[in-house]
């Protein structure tokens, strides 16, 4: 298996197309993410942001084009999806914690069942992850007993327990109360500072400006433009970007 070299992108999308029935959601996406890079994808609702992320870990199969994760072709019928998903972590808007298991168990389940790792070792890591997301004392709480922000941080910890190479965040603060958004963003920023490669779909412009190396703007299934945050927000080139930023800033 090819490992990524500094010049080789960790995630490489080339001319990716995806339709749901008659609706073409992705109309040729080109995108590169190198190791330790943080990209934020912004754009109006329905512009294909979430679908784009779901293609990276093969939750959504693409129609044509190429996606490579660490050199491995995702759009390959013989793809080992499980091997791919061990490398790619994903956090969802609705947290999707397993409600019948405690916070600690939620984090420990996949490493034990999927990676067949030793239970004691996994538990040690899981407790460290709970400390990392600053939720000590919530180990034995069930998801239903946690606030949205707390659930989302457990979901991040659950994903990190698989030791992924790249993390996908799909509007992870969109369903949260405003006062809990900050805690989740702090957790993600900490990850980016530690060098985690991240692809973040978000509506939090301030946050995107702060953490992103590159901002990508999507509209109607294409990436309209991208650039470093300062440049992107100060001098948007495309009229669609300008219009979008005017509406939200």
């Amino acid at each position, binding site marked *: 298996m090819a490992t990524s070299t500094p010049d080789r992108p960790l995630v490489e999308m080339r001319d990716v197309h995806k339709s749901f029935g008659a609706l073409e959601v992705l109309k040729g996406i080109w995108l590169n993410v190198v190791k330790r890079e943080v990209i934020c994808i912004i754009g109006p609702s329905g512009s294909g942001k979430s679908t784009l992320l779901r293609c990276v*870990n093969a939750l959504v199969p693409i129609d044509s084009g190429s996606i490579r994760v660490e050199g491995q072709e995702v759009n390959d019928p013989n793809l080992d999806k499980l091997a791919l998903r061990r490398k790619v*972590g994903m956090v969802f808007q609705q947290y999707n914690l*397993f409600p019948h298991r405690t916070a600690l168990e939620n984090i420990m*389940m996949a490493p034990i069942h999927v990676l067949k790792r030793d239970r004691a070792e996994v538990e040690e890591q899981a407790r460290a992850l709970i400390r990392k997301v600053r939720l000590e004392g919530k180990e034995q709480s069930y998801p239903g007993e946690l606030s949205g922000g707390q659930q989302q941080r457990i*979901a991040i910890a659950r*994903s990190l327990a698989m030791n992924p190479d790249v993390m996908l965040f799909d509007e992870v603060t969109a369903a949260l109360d405003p006062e809990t958004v900050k805690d989740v963003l702090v957790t993600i920023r900490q990850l980016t500072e530690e060098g985690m490669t991240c692809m973040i779909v978000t509506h939090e412009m301030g946050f995107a400006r702060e953490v992103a190396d590159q901002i990508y703007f999507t509209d109607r299934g294409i990436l309209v433009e991208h650039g470093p945050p300062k440049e992107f927000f100060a001098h948007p080139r495309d009229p669609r970007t300008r219009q979008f930023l005017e509406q939200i800033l």
Partner: protein
Amino acid sequence: MTCARTTDLPVLLGARKPKPSSSGGLRLSAWHGFALAAALLLFSAAADAAAGPDVASIPATIWKWTPLLAQGFALNIAISFLAMAIGTVAGVPLGLAQISLLPPIRTSSWFVTQFFRNSPWLVLLFYCMLLLPFQVQIGGTTIPLPGWFKSTIGLSLPVMANVSELVRGAVRSIPYGQWEAAESLAYTRRQTLWLIILPQCVKRITPPWMNLYAILTTSTPLCAVVGVAEAMTLTGNILNAEGRTDLLIPMYLYLLLWFFAYCYPIARATIALEKRFQVR
């Protein structure tokens, strides 16, 4: 609820809370039990008053036959237990087959489920009585198949189909995000089903499953039609032996009371479980 009464606006009417008892039509209440007991006393007293002093009183007669009736009722319970067990053991895999990714398995299990779910229980009972042999030979040993066992199989078929639908419905009711989350954590479909989806289904299935059991129990007297010596059959025999028309109504009321005493606690427990599961 109040707004529903004070407005005609469909928007507000739509916000009405659904009734908690979603899994069945009529629910047993304590009131039904009191009504039964009261009717039993009333008819007994009336019959006793009409009869002369030389015949045994109704309560005494009923009491005399109670041990025999209890025996018959025990068979009803045994049939209900066994039919529920067989129906559940067969129904769970059938329900899982209904969500299979393989179209032939999905379609055939759907057909089996619909066939047995929409057949009258009595018809299935007759079919099993007539189609199953009275004994089977395995190797050199002959295993007799008594009538009560054949009718148990007959009753377990609709139970199987109903359990199958419960399983399918419960799996479908789990939010899709649970599948997505498990998939993105590299779980296989089988692991997702057994470790994440089905454990959540158990909670959802338990109340309707208990409801199904209560319905099954109250359906066991159907076996009387095919000659199984359960409580209903025995009640008929007792009435024949006594040859008293004034015993007819009290005796059947007494039998009803037995079923009520057995099923009412189940109904209460089902409601309690439903309430508890609703909160989370």
